[in-house]
């Protein structure tokens, strides 16, 4: 029982990070029908911004010995979001917008190209060896009847929920969100109705990249070893999460991410721990076989 709860808790904490990344995939897909494969690497950049900014801030605020405070953590998070938001905008403006009217495969290949550029450019700029993410907040153990957690896991969970709620509000509660949904529903009609589609798409990229930055910082806190290729696996798993929940569907991405996290935790704790990564992809294949539109996706037959 205790082991069950512990695995559940670990799974939800890991899954909330997948969910944050998955949101970026699902939003871009929803609006452009493009799988932005560079998204996992934006997540990596977010982590590295946190690494450098966190190291610098802790020196500025607490002297050479370093230290930590929630205020500096919040500033680091904000900074990382700004950098990644700008990167997301640049990415869309330079790489995807010129291909807006090209066949969709061209954008897909470009996305893979951007992904490699960020990964190996990251190895060139940051160095290929793993780095240790700074301790932004003091860590405490919390023991609830044998189930042990840290304030980190709770922070990860809390911050993830806050940002998902903000996103939910933006998409369903604001004028911009309505524009986004309109563009997602029908690109041409939306532009005929006077919706500035280019701006909506750019903003969608910016929001998605900012969420990836949040995920990057939370990942750095929870698993403090970061390197330029760290975005590959979480990126793929987040993509699986997005497909699992029904790609293009915002609540679906959250549920998908949490499910993948929990399933992985249970597989990892069983004697099949060897196959943990394989499980995520087996799930993807099974879902595509039986429910091509995912758990929450609406099945829309192509009209000819």
């Amino acid at each position, binding site marked *: 029982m205790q082991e069950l709860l512990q695995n559940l808790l*670990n799974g939800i904490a*890991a899954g909330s990070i997948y969910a944050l990344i998955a949101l970026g995939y699902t939003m871009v897909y929803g609006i452009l029908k493009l799988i932005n494969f560079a998204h996992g690497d934006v997540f990596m950049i977010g982590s590295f911004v946190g690494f450098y900014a966190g190291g610098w801030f802790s020196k500025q605020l607490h002297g050479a010995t370093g230290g930590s405070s929630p205020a500096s953590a919040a500033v680091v998070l904000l900074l990382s979001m700004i950098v990644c938001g700008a990167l997301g905008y640049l990415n869309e403006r330079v790489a995807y917008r010129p291909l807006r009217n090209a066949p969709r495969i061209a954008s897909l290949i470009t996305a893979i190209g951007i992904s490699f550029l960020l990964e190996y450019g990251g190895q060139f700029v940051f160095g290929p060896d793993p780095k240790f993410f700074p301790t932004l907040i003091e860590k405490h153990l919390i023991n609830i009847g044998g189930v*042990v957690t840290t304030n980190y896991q709770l922070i990860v969970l809390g911050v993830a929920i806050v940002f998902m709620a903000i996103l939910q509000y933006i998409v369903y509660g604001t004028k911009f969100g309505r524009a986004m949904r309109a563009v997602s529903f029908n690109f041409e009609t939306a532009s005929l109705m006077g919706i500035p589609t280019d701006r909506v798409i750019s903003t969608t990229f910016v929001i998605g990249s900012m969420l990836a930055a949040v995920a990057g910082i939370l990942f750095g806190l929870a698993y403090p070893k970061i390197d330029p290729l760290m975005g590959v696996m979480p990126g793929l798993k987040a993509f699986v999460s997005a497909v699992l929940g029904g790609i293009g569907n915002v609540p679906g991405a959250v549920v998908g991410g949490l499910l993948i996290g929990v399933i992985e935790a249970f597989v990892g704790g069983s004697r099949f721990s060897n196959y943990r990564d394989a499980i995520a992809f087996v799930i993807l294949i099974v879902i595509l076989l039986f429910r091509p539109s995912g758990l929450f996706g609406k099945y829309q037959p192509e009209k000819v």
Partner: protein
Amino acid sequence: MKRNVLVAITCALALAFLGCPPKNAETPNATTTGGDGEILVGEYGSLTGNQATFGTSTHNAIMLAVDEINGAGGVNGRKIKVQTEDDQSKAEEAANAVTKLIAQNNVVAVLGEVASSSSIAAAPICQNNKIPMITPSSTNPAVTKKGDYIFRMCFLDDYQGASMARYLRQTLGIKNVAILIDNKSDYSTGLAKYFGDAFTAMGGTIVGTQSFTSGDSDFRAQLTAIRTTKPELIYIPAYYNDVGQIAIQARDLGMNMPLAGGDGWESPKLIEIGGKALEGCFYSNHYFFGDTNPIVRNFVEKYKQRYSATPDALAALAYDAARVLADAMKRAGGKTDGPTLREAIAATKGFAGVTGTINLGPDRNPEGKTLVIVEVKGGELTLKAKVEPEGAPAATGTATTTTTGTTGTQ
């Protein structure tokens, strides 16, 4: 539009050339000095990638040893030149690198690798071309079984695993141990098996075994499963970059038992990543940098002076490998063909190395080396114990034929 493309291509090419390492910059004036020109020795290693810190310290130590040998007159009047290839920490690339060294550069011998999987990939190529290969630090037994041209400087995983088991069981009196294996690495699965076999043979119990894949970041699930089996210690034969994370997450789950491991833990980054979580944890190793032995002290001082870093065990083994090779070349009397050089290396006995006395046995592995146990204490590495080979400590013997290789006579 066309011009833009041209500019882009030119820029790309310029970048590509800038990215190439200056291969010949190492020894600009190493021209022939009396002998038949330079002796070209190949080195392949993980200069980038996951195990870059291993590859770099190995490379540094080889260059230190070779420059020392050359500074003392070289081998029979000829200087040694090292041609280095990066295998990016990948076994496939290791095979390519060694093929290139042998086929294109015509090296007379090959030094490398650290990771057993890379050495296992490269060894058959050396064997087929009759080019002796010395791996400084691959501990998997399969490496030297690839053929009679393959040698090694370090003790093997079976020796390391069994000695650690003996130390835990008989010296520390530990009975229940859990094992956490990196199932992607030959090194980890091998060491886990030898440790487990020896430990159970001595009356200990392996209460649980879990595995992960190198590069994973979440180990909480496996650790949660291990926690329910209540071990006194967790044996983690993995590399330093994963160990730090595992230690942090174990402490986060309220698990306070010591963690122990093998020589894969050795890295200055170990404590940087693991921090306080590693306090009281220990690992078996080939040498300790604080050793008072004059050969060790000399090496550590020179290395620190040149690279401003403390040499790790991989550096020590690489230093020994380069010096053993040079020593064998001297004894081969100027001949550098594969078979002659092979015979000379195989005859290495009583060589006073940084990692202890090196006697190469009939299976081309060193025999009866001392295991040091290094403990993390107060955020520093300290010497916890030395584990001598089982039975009589016959490690020293009477040094007969060879000297240290730096004297440069003949």
